[in-house]
């Protein structure tokens, strides 16, 4: 039996004390790590919560996309659009889908979709300068052709394009096209209704509405929409607006990805033709 003062027993006690200290330290470290992990988890959860609240506020604030619908016929916005379109086009000859002097040496073919917001941007910002500088002066004429891009329903695409072409029978297609772009509604909002199309027609100066209504049934226009799509396809166009600059005796010059706001690219192409 060992005595209390036995050095061997003393060592064991020291070792035990050391072990206990080590264990205590390990436990403290483990609990510190746990506390740190818990703190980080709380911080992570806090940030995630703040993000969720902010996103929920954004979703509620942006709602269903605001009120970017087409203006009602005879509304102030529609009247402003009509005034702007009339002042841009008045006095420029029109024939079917062409704007400008039929004997103008250069033809700019504009492939567009009436519901395409890019076409709207181009038509409202870059095109007026081209019309003033090149079309009004007789240097060029512009032909509008249809190419479906933004309009989702094939049937609606055809209906709206035929409505424009039927106005062309009375040499007023460009009024219709310009008014469509000026009053374009939010994409996929279903704004292109029969009353929208008729509302535009009622804004076209001098358009005989009953003749226009009857011309809309002319199958030649539906065929023209199909042939426009075929020609866009043959040219390899993938988006609207796309353009071709044509001049007799020269190979047609395709223009894609031109600036939607700066008319310079197209004006230079017309000047070079």
């Amino acid at each position, binding site marked *: 039996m060992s005595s209390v003062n036995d050095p061997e027993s003393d060592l064991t006690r020291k070792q035990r004390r050391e072990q206990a200290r080590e264990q205590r330290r390990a436990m403290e470290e483990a609990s510190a790590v746990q506390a740190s992990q818990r703190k980080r988890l709380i911080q992570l959860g806090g940030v995630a919560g703040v993000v969720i609240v902010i*996103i929920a506020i954004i979703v509620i604030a*942006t709602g269903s996309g605001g009120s970017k619908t087409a203006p009602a016929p005879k509304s102030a916005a529609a009247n402003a659009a009509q005034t702007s379109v009339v002042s841009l086009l008045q006095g420029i000859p029109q024939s079917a889908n062409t704007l400008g002097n039929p004997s103008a040496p250069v033809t700019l073919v504009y492939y567009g979709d009436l519901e395409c917001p890019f076409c709207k941007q181009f038509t409202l910002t870059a095109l007026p300068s081209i019309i003033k500088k090149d079309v009004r002066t007789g240097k060029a004429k512009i032909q509008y052709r249809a190419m479906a891009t933004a309009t989702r329903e094939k049937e609606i695409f055809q209906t709206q394009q035929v409505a424009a072409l039927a106005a062309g029978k009375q040499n007023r297609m460009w009024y219709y096209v310009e008014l469509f772009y000026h009053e374009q509604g939010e994409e996929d909002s279903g704004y292109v209704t029969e009353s929208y199309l008729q509302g535009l027609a009622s804004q076209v100066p001098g358009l005989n509405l009953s003749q226009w209504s009857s011309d809309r049934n002319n199958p030649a226009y539906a065929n023209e929409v199909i042939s426009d799509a075929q020609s866009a396809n043959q040219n390899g166009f993938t988006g*609207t607006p796309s353009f071709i600059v044509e001049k007799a005796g020269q190979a047609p010059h395709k223009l894609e990805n031109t600036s939607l706001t700066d008319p310079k690219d197209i004006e230079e192409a017309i000047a070079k033709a």
Partner: protein
Amino acid sequence: MSRRALRIVTILLTVLGIGIAGYVTYVHYAGIKPACTAGESCAKVQTSIYSELAGVPVALMGLIGYIAILATLLAPESERTRFATLALTLGGFGFSAYLTYRELFSIHAICEWCVTSAVVMTLLMLLSAWRFMRGAPVSPGSGSAFAGPVDAVTDGGVGVN
């Protein structure tokens, strides 16, 4: 994955995000059509009313966000910078989720640039969360795995777990 590799992957993903957001921001201000394999889908998304928030293009917001994330990654690593990276990427992830929701349910078109950015941001958020939860590396002799004393230890330094 070592801390160094984790940080490098996170930085590379952020640079990729800057490239995507930078291109889309350029397209927005230049008024040109974005390169897109899905026809007009990208254009449709980028010209929709949801392409701006309070008058600020969301592409520009994304670009600023990615630059801020890069700044937190390039700063000397500490608990605070890891938390800043996490907070920014969580915010970016939430915003990407909102934009994807708008693409699917409001615009009905998918923009491949936006989807790629959303995937990059999701990866960044996961990596940042992992990096944040791992905490600071244990410095030999510190006697503790607790973050405090080794906050200033940078990646690739001593005591990599």
